[in-house]
C-alpha cells in the first residue's frame, strides 16, 4: 500500500480521537475528561500517531493496538446510560477513529506479501478475521449508540448473552433439528443416492434414464414437499429426516453417476486385463475415482440438509427445533433469541461443512487439486 495514503488515514484517525476530547459525547453528558477511560483513548491516539510515523509493515501491529484501545473506550462509554441511545459527535469521533484505523491496518496487512509460508497463512487468516471483527464492532456500536429498538435489530452482544443464558433450550433444539432430523436424513439420502448411482452405473440403460431425471429433479424446489412429509410421517423428526433425505438424494445421484463415469479408459482396460470382477473394479477403481465427485455432493448436501430441516419445521413440529424456535420467537418479537438460533444454525452448518472437508482431505489426498 502507498505509505502516504496509510499515513494520511492514520493521521485522520488520530485527529478524530482528538476531536472526541473537544466535542460533547452526548447532549447533556459530562465531559470526556471526567470519564476515567479517557487515558485509553489518548493512548490509542498516540499509537495511531506512532503508526503513521512508521507507515510500513510494522504500523499494522501498532495500529491494531490503538484500535483495540479506542474500541474498548467506546464500548465502555456505551455503558453510561447518558450516552447509550443518544450518542453524538464526540462518541462517533471515537468510533470513526477506530474504524478508520482498522480499515487502514486491514488494507495495509492485505497488501503484504510475506515470503515465509506460515506468515502468509497467518496474514490470510488475520485479514478476514479483522474485517469480520470490525463489522461486528460497527454493528454493536451503531445499534447501541443510536438506540435501535431491539425488536428491529439486537446488538451482537445481546444475542450472545441470550445464547449463553439459554444453552439448555439451544441444546434441545440442536439435538432435535440437527442430530435427529439432519444427520439421519442426510445419511439416508446420501446413502440411497450412492446406491442408486452404483446400480445405474452397473446397468447402462437405467443410468441413461436416471441422469436426465436426476438433473431435472435436483433443480426443482424440493423443499416444497415438506408439508406432505409432515402429513405422512407426523410432526416429529421422521418427517424432517424424510425431507432432508429427499433433498439430498438427487444431488448425490447426479454427482455420483458423473463420478463413476470419471475413471479413465486406460484404467478400465487395466482392470479388464487383470480379469477383475465387477465388484473388484467397483471398489478398487470406480469408487475411488468417484470420491471427489461424491464429496462435492456431500458438501452441497451439507447446506441443503440444514435448510430442508429448518423449512420443514415451519410446517409443524413438536415444541422443539431450530426452525420452530425461529418462527415462534419471531412471532413473539424476541429477536435476540432468533439471532441466537441463527448463530446456532450457522455454527452447526459450518462445523458440518468443515467436518466433510476434513474427511475429504483425509480420503482424497491423492487428487491433483490437493497435491500442490
Amino acid at each position, binding site marked *: 500500500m502507498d505509505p502516504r495514503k496509510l499515513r494520511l488515514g492514520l493521521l485522520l484517525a488520530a485527529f478524530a480521537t482528538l476531536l472526541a476530547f473537544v466535542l460533547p459525547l452526548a447532549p447533556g453528558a459530562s465531559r470526556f475528561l471526567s470519564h476515567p477511560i479517557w487515558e485509553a483513548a489518548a493512548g490509542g491516539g498516540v499509537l495511531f500517531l506512532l503508526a503513521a510515523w512508521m507507515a510500513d509493515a510494522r504500523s499494522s501491529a501498532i495500529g491494531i493496538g490503538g484500535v483495540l484501545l479506542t474500541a474498548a473506550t467506546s464500548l465502555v462509554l456505551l455503558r453510561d446510560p447518558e450516552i447509550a441511545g443518544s450518542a453524538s459527535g464526540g462518541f462517533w469521533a471515537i468510533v470513526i477513529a477506530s474504524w478508520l484505523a482498522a480499515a487502514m491496518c486491514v488494507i495495509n496487512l492485505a497488501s503484504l506479501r510475506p515470503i515465509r509460508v506460515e506468515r502468509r497463512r497467518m496474514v490470510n487468516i488475520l485479514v478476514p478475521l479483522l474485517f469480520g471483527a470490525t463489522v461486528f464492532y460497527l454493528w454493536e456500536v451503531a445499534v447501541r449508540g443510536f438506540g435501535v429498538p431491539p425488536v428491529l435489530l439486537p446488538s451482537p452482544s445481546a444475542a450472545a448473552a441470550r445464547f449463553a443464558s439459554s444453552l439448555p433450550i439451544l441444546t434441545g433444539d440442536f439435538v432435535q433439528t440437527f442430530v435427529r432430523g439432519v444427520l439421519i436424513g442426510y445419511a439416508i439420502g446420501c446413502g440411497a443416492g450412492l446406491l442408486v448411482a452404483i446400480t445405474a452405473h452397473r446397468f447402462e440403460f437405467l443410468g441413461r434414464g436416471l441422469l436426465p431425471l436426476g438433473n431435472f429433479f435436483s433443480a426443482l424446489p424440493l423443499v416444497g414437499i415438506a408439508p*406432505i412429509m409432515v402429513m405422512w410421517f407426523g410432526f416429529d423428526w421422521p418427517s424432517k429426516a424424510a425431507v432432508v433425505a429427499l433433498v439430498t438424494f438427487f444431488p448425490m445421484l447426479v454427482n455420483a453417476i458423473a463420478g463413476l463415469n470419471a475413471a479413465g479408459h486406460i484404467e478400465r482396460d487395466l482392470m479388464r486385463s487383470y480379469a477383475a470382477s465387477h465388484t473388484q473394479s467397483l471398489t478398487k477403481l470406480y469408487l475411488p475415482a468417484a470420491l471427489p465427485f461424491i464429496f462435492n455432493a456431500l458438501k452441497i448436501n451439507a447446506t441443503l440438509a440444514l435448510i430442508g430441516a*429448518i423449512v420443514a419445521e415451519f410446517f409443524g413440529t413438536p415444541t422443539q427445533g431450530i426452525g420452530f424456535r*425461529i418462527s415462534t420467537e419471531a412471532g413473539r418479537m424476541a429477536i435476540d433469541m432468533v439471532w441466537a438460533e441463527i448463530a446456532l444454525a450457522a455454527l452447526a452448518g459450518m462445523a458440518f461443512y468443515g467436518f466433510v472437508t476434513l474427511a475429504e482431505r483425509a480420503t482424497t489426498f491423492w487428487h491433483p487439486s490437493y497435491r500442490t
Partner: protein
Amino acid sequence: MTSSSFALPLRAPRALARHPLVERYAPIVTTVLALIAIWYIAAVAMNWSLVRDAFEREETPYTISDVLAGTMDAERPLLPAPHQIASTFFDGVFGYPPLAPRSLVYHSLVTLSATLLGFVLGAVFGIALALMIVHSRVLERSLLPWIICSQMVPILALAPIFIVVLGALGLQGLLPKSIISAYLCFFPITIGMVKGLTSPDPLQLELMHTWSADTRQILWKLRWPAAVPYLFASLKVAITISLIGAIVAELPTGAEAGIGARLLSGSYYGQTVQLWAALVAAAVLSSGLIGIVALVDRGVARRMGAH
C-alpha cells in the same frame, strides 16, 4: 473413401433400437413410465386402509374393486394418483380466469414476480460484488472468505426475521420476498463471476498489458467475455434458488397469495391434491425459468461465436 463404404448397407434387425432418437429417449421414457407405475401402486397401497375405513364407517357392502376405484379418486388421499394431480393442476390453470384467487396462474404470477425481482436484484448485486472483489486485493482477501463461510450457513433460516424486520420498517408485499430471493441467489453469482473474471490465463493478461490496455479495457475486452459462460452457469443455479427463496418467504408471513401460501393452506386444511398441484406449478415454473436462461445462454453463446 474407405473400404467399408463399398460394403452393402447394413440392415441389422435391431435398426430401430439403434436410431439416435430412440437411443436417447427410450431410457428416459421407460424410467418415467416405471416411476408413474410405482406411483399408482403406492397410491393404492397408501390409500387402501383410508378408503376401506370409509366404506366400513358407512356400513355399505363393498367389493375389492370398489376400494380400488376409491383409492384412485379419494377426496383427501394420503398420496393422490397422478391423474388426480394432473386434473387438479389443469383445472387450476385453465378452469378459472387467470386472476381469480383460486387460479394457479394467479398464485404462480405472484411468486414469479417476487422471484424475478429478487433474481434481478441478486444478479446485479452479485455481479457488482464480483467486479469489486476482482479489482481489489483487499476485498478479495477480507470479504471473500466471509462470503464462502456464509454459503455454509442456512441462510433460509433468516427469512422470517427479514420479513419481521422489513414489516416493522413498513415494507410489505413484494419487496421483502424479493429481498430474501436476492439475498439467497447472489452468492452463487458472486462466486461464479469471481471465478469467471479471473479465468483468463496470465498469457492473455500479459498480452493486454503489452498493448497498454487499462483496467477498464481489460475488463470489457478480456475478463467479461471470458466470464460469460460462468455467468450463465451460475444464473441457472441462482434462478432456482431465487424461486425457492420466494416460496419459503411466503411461509412465515402467512401471505394470502403465492405458491408458498398455497402449500401452507393445503397443509393446514389437509387438501393434499391442492398441495401436489401447487408443487407441480412450482416445478413447471422452475423448469420454465431454467429453460429461458438456457435459451438466452445459447443465443448469447452463438452471438459470441461459439459453435
